[in-house]
C-alpha cells in the first residue's frame, strides 16, 4: 500500500465517521445523512480498488480514469447544490407562511382579548 492510498483511505473513512457522528449528535437528519454516507462509501470503494475506476473509465471510452472521477464528482455536486436550492426555496415558503399565520393569529388573539376587556398585554383594564 502506497502513501496516497493510505491518506485517501483515512480521509474517506474519516468523512464516513464524521457523518455518523453528526447524525448521532442530531445535527444532521438521516434523510441527508444517507446521501453523504453513500458518497463516502463510494469514495472508500474507489481508494480500495483502483481497477474499479479504470474499468469504468475505459468502458465509457475515457482513457485517463481521473477525468471520469472529476466529471462524475462535479455533476454529483451540481445535482446536490440544485437539490439544496429546492429545499431552501421550500423552507422559505413555509417560513413565509408561518410568519403570516403567526401575525394573523396574534391579531385574532388580541381581538378576542379586547372583547374580554383585556389590554394587549393580557392584563385586565382598570376601571
Amino acid at each position, binding site marked *: 500500500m502506497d502513501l496516497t492510498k493510505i491518506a485517501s483511505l483515512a480521509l474517506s473513512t474519516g468523512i464516513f465517521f464524521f457523518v455518523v457522528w453528526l447524525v448521532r449528535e442530531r445535527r444532521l437528519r438521516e434523510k441527508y445523512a444517507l446521501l453523504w454516507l453513500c458518497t463516502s462509501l463510494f469514495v472508500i470503494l474507489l481508494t480500495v480498488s483502483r481497477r474499479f475506476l479504470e474499468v469504468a473509465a475505459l468502458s465509457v471510452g475515457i482513457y485517463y480514469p481521473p477525468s471520469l472521477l472529476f466529471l462524475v464528482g462535479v455533476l454529483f455536486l451540481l445535482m446536490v447544490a440544485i437539490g439544496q436550492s429546492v429545499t431552501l426555496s421550500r423552507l422559505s415558503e413555509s417560513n*413565509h407562511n408561518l*410568519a*403570516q399565520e*403567526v*401575525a*394573523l393569529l*396574534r*391579531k385574532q388573539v388580541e381581538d378576542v382579548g379586547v372583547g374580554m376587556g383585556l389590554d394587549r398585554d393580557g392584563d385586565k383594564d382598570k376601571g
Partner: protein
Amino acid sequence: MKILAIIPAYNEAANIGAVIEDLKSFRGDLLVVNDGSTDATAAVARSLGALVISHPFNLGIGGTVQTGLRYACENDYDYAIQFDGDGQHRGDQVFKIVDLVQRGEADLVIGSRTLPGGYKMGITRWVGSRIFHCLIRGLAGKTIEDPTSGFRCYGKRTIRLFSRFYTDDYPEVESIITAARNGLRVVEVPVLMRGRLSGHSSITRRKSAYYMLKVTLAMVVDAMRGRDLIEES
C-alpha cells in the same frame, strides 16, 4: 360592502400618522401591516385607531401586502385597496381606483402616474417601466402604462387569488401577469401622487439591475403557468 385599506409599513413611524390622517374620510377599515419595524410604527398606528398586524420579522413588501389580503380574505371583505405607508399615495385619489371594482367592472385596478393627469417619474424608473410595459403586452396582451405602481384596488376574486399566490420581493409587475393569466380584469386609471414625505425608495440604483432581471424571469415563468385553482366562496 366591507372595504379594507391595506397599508404596508416598514419603519414608517414618521409618516404613518399623516397617512392615516389622509385616509380619515375613507369609508372602511384601515389595516396597517407592520413588516417587522424596529421603530414605533405599530404603536403610532394603533394609537390613531387603525387595525394593526405585525410580522414577527421582515418579509418584504410582497409578503406584507399578502398578509393584508389574507386578512381581507379571512374576514370576508368585498374589496381592498393598497395604500403605501410612506405618504406617496393620496387619500383624495382613492375613489378613482375603487370606482370600477365597486361597479363590478374590474377585478384589479392600478392607479397610474403616467396616464394623462398623472405625474412625472425619474428616468431610471421610466426606462424600467417601459420595459415592463412591453413585456406585459407581449405576455398578457394588456397595456399597462405604470406597472410598478403600488396604488391598487383588489376585488374579491383578486383578493382570493393573491392571498394564495403573491411574490415576496418586487411583486407589483408579476402580479399583473398572475391576475391576467387567471382571467381577472386588470384596468388602469390615472391618479395623482406626491413625492415621498421622508425616507427613500426601496429600490436603489445598485439593486435595479437585479430587480429588472428577477422580475423579468418571474414574469416569463409566471406566464408559462396554467390557471391557478381559486375555489369559489
